[in-house]
């Protein structure tokens, strides 16, 4: 599975959505549940799923699926 697919799966799980509802361009603007609290839960889930430790700037940047993918691609993933 590509990073993008895994990210979309995590999003679907965290926000209790159908996988089909999370498009490749989903963002904080398009998904209602992706508010500031949702974002916190999502970041925790991303950290768990990809076994990484994110920092402040990365948290702030990850506002959409493409951006999340971009951040994760820059890290050494397991």
């Amino acid at each position, binding site marked *: 599975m590509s990073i993008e697919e895994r990210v979309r799966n995590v999003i679907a799980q965290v926000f209790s959505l159908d996988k089909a509802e999370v498009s490749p361009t989903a963002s904080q603007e398009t998904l209602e549940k992706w*508010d500031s*609290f949702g974002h*916190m*839960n999502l970041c*925790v889930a991303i950290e768990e799923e990809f076994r990484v430790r994110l920092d402040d700037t990365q948290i702030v940047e990850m506002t959409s699926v493409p951006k999340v993918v971009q951040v994760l691609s820059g890290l050494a993933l397991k």
Partner: protein
Amino acid sequence: MAFNSFHFLVYFPIVLGCYHALPHRFRWMLLLAASLYFYMAWRAAYVVLLLGAILVSYLAGIWIEEAEAPALKRRHLAFGLTVLLGNLFVFKYFNFFNDSVRAVVELMGLHYGLGALKLLLPIGISFYTFQKASYLIDIYRGKQKAERHLGIFALYSSFFPQLVAGPIERGPHLLPQFREEHRFDYAQVASGLRLMAWGFFKKTVVADRLAPFVNNVYSNPTEQVGTSLLLATLFFAFQVYCDFSGYSDIAVGCARTIGFRLVDNFRQPYFSSSIQEFWKRWHISLSSWLTDYVYTPFTRARWLKMHWYPKLLLSLLLTFLVSGLWHGANWTFVVWGALHGSYLIGALLLQKQRLRAVKALGLDRQPRLLKWINIASTFALVCIAYIFFRANTLSDAFYVLAHGFASIPQLRFGSISQFDHYAHNEFVLACLGIGVVMLNDYVTLNDFKLVKDLWQKPWVRRSFDFAITAGIALFGAFYGGKQTFIYFEF
């Protein structure tokens, strides 16, 4: 000037009439004069502080924008914020701070010589300070251009509908509106007046009616029965909602009659399914202010070296402590803020457990039941926090909490009859009033098609207007509610 005063009843139609009669280029002058008059009607001397804050913000804003070096920009911003917040601190928080320090010093057996300041709290200072602070910060962040026209800026800073109790308006939202030409629109004026009437209804029929009872109970809680404490807290939840949202409605409606759009401050908050949602529906202009100018900067603070997750939680707590303190200079408000912060932190940390519990109880297959359970529990949490918000001292609050809860098993339908300082009529009217307000909120929230269609018909709107006006005249709690029929049965 208070909105629910005879003075305002005379003042407002005059302002409204003159506004629409004047050509656009003179309107800002009228509004500025009207706003300053409005503020001076409280206590003339304090307009000096307001004007001072206006001047400082005006200059600081221009300096920040014109400064090239970021360090210089930051210095001008610091200057502006220090003056504004310092002013707020002196008038609102000095005595609180001083008393707390004294308590600590005396606990250590030392003598503390600094006395309390005898200053009257200028009305609206918390609101206008925050509004101007947001203006300066927005200039610094490049989101707002400094307003060069002193008159327009002064008007933005003192605009009478929202000067005293909000909504807190951001520069980018409100400032440009003063330059737009507002054409007279009958439907808009009518809609604004209707919103004002609804606000007056909430305030005079519900909030002012509940106030004497709540005040009576909370002024000496230790002499009250447990069920009184419980009921008074419940009543307070509706009192503060009707008072505050009523006031906001009057502000928004009033602005609408002269063509201005203010932000919505309340969106049916007591139907929230979580504390998170509550804060998106309650005092929205303050929540967003705190999010943009306290929470977000704190979460991005580089100097605080911790993992982002606990940092966010800490930022949340801090933001709510600030919120608590903003509401009043007392430890009870701080505890209120801390409680709400803890509610949110708890909700975040216990998410998985909550989901497991919901599944175990089979509630995930009953979404409607689950929703109402969530609404009820959110309201309960909010009420518990209100105990601290309303109580005069921390010890009072703990007393109310303990005895209020303990009395739940004793609650009976006839419990209200023991309050003989609160006439039976008043209680019935208050409950009916609360019912009307909540029904309106429920209908607005769900946007029922039937209601929407009905509302299109003019006779429906006219009946509503008449009913609300009659309601205010016939049931507005203007007279203290002490009268009972003696000899003359009217």
